[in-house]
């Protein structure tokens, strides 16, 4: 379902864009506004992060958004309600991104059913390696949801295959060591890594961590299926406000190329 959506879209666009917001940050109203701007500007799919108090894999920008959202009193239920609203309002696939404890406290099965009811496509849970994910995998499968798993430069080929066998929809390829939000050097070493990813799976590849401008997207075009813009839009909202998002997104992909098609 998610995989075929991506493959179809890829026939239209050389590279897809996935963006990331932290739910309730700066506020739910702002979030809704941001989603609208993003969708209008051509974003192809979105991660909605349910904030967690211990976001171990996130860098300073997203970390701080998590904390501020929680400080504002954001609850999981509010995040669910919001996701229902955006799914109803916008016609792109939405994924949850959060840490495993959020699912665990909600009840992993219930969480999947809820996602399914809400019309979500899948979830990214960065602290859940497949080895720990038995219950999760079953629940997601039975609800026809995509569990998105992660490749990293430190993942051996063997393990990539194993991970890919658990994942659905696409594989999230982390561009480099480190956390979200810092700079990535898209160098030659990086090619070797992406090649390894390609060999390990037939699933589409999303590439994230440090993607921040048109240059990065141009570089990734033809190499990955999806470019993930994470911290950069949050930083943008922090600095220039919600209104700046649309223009930023529109500037990321070469319009000419898009038009040529």
């Amino acid at each position, binding site marked *: 379902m998610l995989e075929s959506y991506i493959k179809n879209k890829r026939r239209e666009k050389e590279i897809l864009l996935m963006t990331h917001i932290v739910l309730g940050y700066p506020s739910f109203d702002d979030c809704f506004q941001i989603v609208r701007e993003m969708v209008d500007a051509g974003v192809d799919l979105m991660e909605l992060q349910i904030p*967690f108090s211990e976001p*171990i*894999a996130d860098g300073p920008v997203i970390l701080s958004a998590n904390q501020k959202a*929680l400080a504002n009193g954001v609850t999981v239920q509010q995040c669910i309600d919001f996701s229902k609203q955006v799914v109803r309002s916008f016609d792109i696939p939405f994924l949850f991104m959060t840490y495993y404890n*959020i699912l665990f406290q909600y009840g992993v099965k219930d969480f999947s059913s809820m996602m399914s009811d809400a019309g979500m496509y899948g979830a990214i849970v960065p*602290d859940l390696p497949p080895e*720990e994910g038995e219950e999760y995998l079953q629940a997601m499968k039975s609800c026809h949801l995509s569990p998105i798993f992660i490749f990293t430069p*430190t993942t051996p080929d063997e393990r990539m295959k194993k991970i890919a066998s658990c994942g659905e929809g696409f594989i999230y390829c*982390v561009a480099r060591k480190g956390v979200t939000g810092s700079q990535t050097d898209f160098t030659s070493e990086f090619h070797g890594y992406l090649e390894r990813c390609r060999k390990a799976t037939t699933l589409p590849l999303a590439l994230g961590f440090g993607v921040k401008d048109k240059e990065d997207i141009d570089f990734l075009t033809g190499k990955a299926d999806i470019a993930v813009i994470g911290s950069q839009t949050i930083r943008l909202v922090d600095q220039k406000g919600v209104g700046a998002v649309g223009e930023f997104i529109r500037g990321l992909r070469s319009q000419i190329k898009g038009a040529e098609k």
Partner: protein
Amino acid sequence: MDHRGYYDGFGGAFIPEILVSTFDELSAAFQKAKRDPDFWQEYKEIMSTYSCRPTPLTFAGNLTRHFGGARIYIKREDLNHTGAHKANNVIGQGLLVQRMGKKRVIAETGAGQHGVATATMAARFGFECTIYMGEVDVRRQRPNVFWMERLGAKVVAVKDGTRILKDAINEAFRDWVTHMDTTHYVLGTACGPHPFPEMVTYFQSIIGQEARKQIISREGKLPARVYACVGGGSNAMGIFSGFMDDPVELVGVEAGGEGLDSGRHASRLSSDDASIGIAQGYKTYFLQDSDGQMKETHSIAAGLDYVGVSPILSHLKETGRVRFEAATDRKVVEALSLTIQKEGLIPALESSHAFAQAFVEAPTLSKQDCIIINQSGRGDKDIFTVADAFSDPGWKEFIMQKAEEYNA
């Protein structure tokens, strides 16, 4: 990673994919070291020449007479180099780091004890060292920050989250996912993803091994009960592991803070306020809300002020092998005060929790019984907190006068 370090459903390794190989490498190095009989020998050797293992088992004659019940023995981890059981763990991990050929270590610290221990180990082994410490703790525990810096460590004040221990752990993980090739994360307690709980317990088990031998040679029998305070659980696991297969009652004492009813405490296993969850890479009892967000905790002892607890202890709670109790801040200061006056020992505020509970129970035991209290660390480090607890006027005056000198 095959054996995932589960203890009846507690534990595991909920780690970002980027760290999986690092954990595999660490697990392999640890398992190899464990199988190598020379390793434990080397470990014991350095602990006996660099620190002062075996640490003594002190008979507390005055406390025994005072309570009129069981004969009270105290295991003296406070005499370790750097003043706490933390030395056992950091030196053990230091030896592993050497074997893995890494050159840099990082660690989290709350009270600063584990940070000082790690910085000390790093100096001794010639590793580069960065210590993450919540900004609030940096401010509260300046003496330890001062020594860490003198020891050559970089101390990073973590400004995110609640700016205390758990946030320092998160930040250490963030460093690790970036620098895992050169860097080992020296986790300070028997928590975190597998193999940390097992590994830290392994190194701390030297406490229990010694204590068992010592009490048998002194008393000709096993103790009736063994008491240890429980922060992350490393000193408790360390001493308990020596008596696990014996008919000995094991008592873990958590931070009761301002009382279990107040909500301001850090009791995960002795209160109903905690529930099972997954955070910081492992599954255990956490003090969390119904959404799974971690709560703020409170204890007079910075080293016990933590939301999670060793998964092995959660398991031992479920099986009933360990009994868990809580001691309030007030009782802890009383126990500290009594121990100082009666025995000339200054337990750390953390350790004083174990004393407080033992003091409740000692009078109810027979004079033929003996008990062991694990004095996990020394209390000099706590002078700022203890002086405040006693509201000592001489101390306040001293500080105000020092401040005037600095202002001048």
